[in-house]
């Protein structure tokens, strides 16, 4: 049953050093505030899973929280590179990180398989790609019925998943609207889950087929207004495209980046 916690307490309680953590949100609803709280609490040695690491993992990597990143597209969308990810991979700053890279299709299937309680996901994927030669978690199996060669990847079962959503009701049931990505799958695949929401309402007012995650499938709900900025929350505020462009210059330089983290993350309280 979802417990209403402050963001600080939710992260302190459920994100342990060394944990495997998925903070999902496909461009939309990226749980930035939660990521910043992880940085503030100086969590270490995390294995970070995300289809698109985006700025949130660029920040966590640059702040030294990650030992490994599992991803499928590691860029700043429409802008260019994630410079902190690159600096860690290419030069080991601020520490060496391991990477394990997939395709989007494989990661989406792996989250779904995790939610379904299966050990693996099967897809018609990676044909002719050299990714299997650098990722030993991509195998091929033969369909027992047709003989077709199909790709197999292990399901994703994070210790903790963190997602952001529009709203929760007073029982902690959560409504996710707009681009829903793999958030529901991430929550259901994880041992523990934290959902940050823009607001608490009396009634979710959800259509019968809306993406609702029941409160009893979530461990903690934390109210964090604007918790997805600079990404966006459909129906609440737009994506700050300008910041995504500005990030390029901030992240390019280690000192500028470190200053930015000090001023915008370390010196801020969660409600600031």
């Amino acid at each position: 049953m979802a417990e209403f916690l402050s963001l600080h307490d939710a992260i302190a309680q459920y994100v342990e050093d060394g944990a495997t953590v998925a903070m999902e949100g496909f461009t939309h609803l990226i749980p930035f505030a939660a990521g910043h709280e992880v940085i503030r609490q100086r969590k270490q040695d995390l294995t970070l899973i995300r289809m698109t690491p985006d700025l949130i993992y660029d920040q966590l990597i640059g702040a030294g929280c990650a030992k490994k990143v599992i991803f499928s597209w590691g860029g700043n969308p429409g802008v260019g590179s994630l410079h902190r990810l690159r600096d860690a991979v290419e030069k080991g700053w601020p520490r060496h990180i391991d990477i394990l890279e997939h395709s989007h299709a494989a990661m989406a299937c792996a989250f779904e398989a995790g939610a379904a309680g299966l050990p693996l996901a099967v897809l018609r994927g990676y044909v002719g790609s050299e990714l299997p030669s650098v990722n030993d978690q991509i195998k091929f199996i033969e369909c027992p019925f047709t003989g077709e060669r199909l790709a197999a990847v292990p399901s994703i079962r994070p210790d903790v998943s963190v997602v952001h959503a529009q709203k929760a009701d007073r029982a902690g049931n959560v409504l996710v609207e707009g681009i829903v990505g793999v958030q529901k799958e991430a929550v259901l695949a994880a041992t523990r889950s934290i959902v940050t929401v823009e607001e608490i309402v009396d009634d979710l007012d959800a259509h019968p087929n809306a993406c609702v995650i029941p409160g009893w499938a979530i461990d903690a709900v934390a109210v964090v207004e604007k918790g997805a900025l600079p990404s966006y929350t459909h129906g609440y505020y737009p994506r700050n495209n300008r910041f995504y462009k500005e990030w390029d210059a901030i992240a390019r330089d280690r000192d500028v980046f470190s200053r930015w983290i000090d001023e915008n993350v370390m010196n801020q309280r969660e409600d600031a």
Partner: protein
Amino acid sequence: MSTLDMSQEYTSAEMMTVTAARALENGMTCFVGIGLPSEAANLARLTHAPGVVLIYESGTLQTKPDVLPLSIGDGELCESALTTVSVPEMFRYWLQGGKVNVGFLGTAQIDRFANLNTTLIGDYQAPKVRLPGGGGAPEIATNAGEVFITLKHSKRAFVKDVDFVTTLGFGRDGKGRDGVPNIGKGPTRVITDLCVMKPDPETKELTVVSLHPGVSREDVTEATGWEIRFADELESTPLPAEHELRILRDLKNRTERQHAGE
């Protein structure tokens, strides 16, 4: 409509986008990559192909954005879509399920067999330049009916052999799709700012089939990292029409204003 008076009044980038847009036919279902493919696909939708169905990997199905998205999951894509599905559904039902006619992709590197590299330059364990990675491309390129590719022509981008095959064109020997069941035709055309290329029907090696106006064979040869071949009957790419340029510029201006936060 007049095209002659426009001949001096478009850029090579506009020539590329207009030509790429014309590759899409009305009624096609197109899985769209971000950047140049997205620009071309939306130009097609706003000109000759109003019925083209655009799908983005963020789950937005049949979307009609008024401005070009900066990211693959901009709110505009969702708000203007017929419906938005989860990302697993997008890849499993719609792409893998065979509902996509064309995948429209960009790339950092492409080789003579149209293999795409968006992973890295150099060696995997010690990369010179780390690129974003595969994203949706590896499965778009094999599960879509066919693939169009668009990118700017340069020796850095057009290499004899890519450093890493992120996404299959026709494999390192041109035979990568032979005998593979349930696989699309692969790249059927590559549109650059200099020319249009198609794979040779036999060898699958990319061959120039059309030169853009004012571009010479030497221009293409110099910008290509292997000895590029030209079709026996080399065509001249039709000029952009006035309305195509006007609609493209309007689209880009609207997009720029919005992304600047105005």
